[in-house]
């Protein structure tokens, strides 16, 4: 197929132009233009309902854009002939609600798509899975079911699951918003180490300290448009727009959570039931 030149060279990991998305009569994205370079970490911030999740989900076509063009790792995903399953393998996604597969153990969560999609054999898939569980500090949890893990552990397994497909870029949709405050640090630490290793990341987050310390660029969205974007120092430190200032004043008011260190393998305690 002409549209899945997997190894074609590309300069921009994500390129979005003229993106519109409506749900019925509700226009949620009103013309978005932006791009993410290879190895870049971009944080998207903005008030609830501004369309951040929708933008992220348009990148891997979990939502079908109403108009506009989205190109990911050299493949135009909005092209009618695209084999979206092939493109999605190269895009890791981490959800606010983890979405681990509850009927599978942590290890099986990491191997199922490797086996079924990439057709790796069990030995190979297990090896990749174990390496990624180790990477998020959860080697001792490979036989645990999601319900037996804390929220923070579940989210780290979810990150490891996405990494096991060896994606070229990662999308994060508020990965720490569903977590108890004391579990946020472990997840952010994993994300920070990923960024340090050069992973391309597009992160929707309310964690301003993470955005400030890890992001190469911050995008502020409101009402379905990008209001401003730039370096974290500029957007978070010295916002140009009134709407940005109002938003930041609100989210920065409570003492911002610290970005934690790389987690040890010890459990963080609390069990979280779905």
């Amino acid at each position, binding site marked *: 197929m002409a549209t899945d030149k997997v190894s074609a060279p590309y300069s921009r990991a994500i390129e979005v132009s003229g993106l519109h998305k409506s749900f019925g009569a509700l226009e949620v994205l009103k013309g978005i233009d932006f791009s993410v370079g290879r190895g870049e970490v971009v944080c998207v911030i903005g008030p609830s309902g501004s369309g951040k999740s929708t933008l992220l989900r348009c990148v891997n076509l979990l939502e079908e854009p109403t108009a506009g063009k989205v190109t990911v790792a050299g493949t135009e995903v909005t092209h009618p002939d695209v084999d979206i*399953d092939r493109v999605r393998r190269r895009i890791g*996604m981490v*959800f606010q609600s983890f979405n681990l597969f509850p009927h599978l153990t942590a290890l099986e969560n990491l191997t199922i*798509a490797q086996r079924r*999609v990439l057709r790796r054999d069990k030995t190979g898939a297990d090896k990749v899975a174990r390496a990624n569980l180790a990477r998020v500090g959860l080697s001792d949890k490979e036989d645990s079911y999601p319900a037996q893990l804390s929220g923070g552990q579940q989210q780290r397994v979810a990150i490891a*699951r*996405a990494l096991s*497909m060896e994606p070229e870029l990662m999308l994060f949709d508020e990965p720490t918003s569903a977590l108890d405050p004391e579990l946020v640090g472990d997840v952010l630490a994993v994300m920070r180490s990923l960024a340090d290793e050069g992973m391309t990341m597009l992160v929707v987050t309310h964690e301003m300290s993470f955005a400030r310390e890890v992001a190469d660029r911050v995008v502020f969205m409101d009402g379905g448009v990008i209001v401003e974007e730039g370096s974290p120092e500029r957007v978070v430190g010295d916002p140009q727009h009134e709407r940005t200032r109002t938003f930041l004043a609100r989210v920065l008011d409570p003492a911002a959570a610290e970005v934690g260190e790389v987690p040890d393998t010890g459990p963080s305690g609390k069990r979280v039931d779905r």
Partner: protein
Amino acid sequence: MSLSKRQRTRVIRGSQYALLAAIVAVVALVADWGQLRRAFFDVGIARELFPGILATALVNTVLYTLLGFGFGLVLGLILALMRLSSVPPYRWIAVTYIEFFRGVPALLVFIALGFGVPLAFEVALDQYVTVMLSLGLVGAAYMAETIRAGILAVPKGQTEAARSLGMSHGRAMVSIVIPQAFRIVLPPLTNELILLTKDSSLVYLLGLSLGQYELANFGRDALNEYKSLTPILVAGLLYLVITLPLGHLVRRLEARTAKAR
């Protein structure tokens, strides 16, 4: 009358007990216990029923039920997926099938397959196949609706996570959604198994050979032989031997599901 509310309640309850005691006393005095015992539970007859009723009848009841359940489960899953299909004709076919087979008596389906098909098509279906088809066709209609509800009960995030890993729609269904759906519908499916156990007695219609007798047929046959209701009672008790543990299992499964929520 100056009875307080509480006293009145007590009087009413007392008279209910009195009435019950009176009825029991009358029945005990009037009834011919010897006759009743001979009719319903003649130990001699009951003893003669064994082990045939276990080795043939009980085994066949279980076998027919499982054949029907297995076929119904597969067909029910296919129907559930058709019902959820984005292709409208598939949905129409599934809906029509489900409405039809839930609406007509199972008895009619047995007659159609047991007598109608062999006459109309001049084929002789194996009895076990007839039973499997008849029970399965009816069971599938109920199971399809149950399975569909189970599939819909799996959170949308599960499909999204699967698709975001590059799984196709079908692969996500097979590996992620359907296994979870079956966990959710395990209790109602077990209930369906109980209903099928009882419906398997309709096999009685088909005129089976001795070796193919299931509990109802066996009981009916022995009734003619012994002129006693004992075989019917024993057959009924043996149905309970199957259905009561299954019912207990359903409640355990339901409790487990409730706890996992």
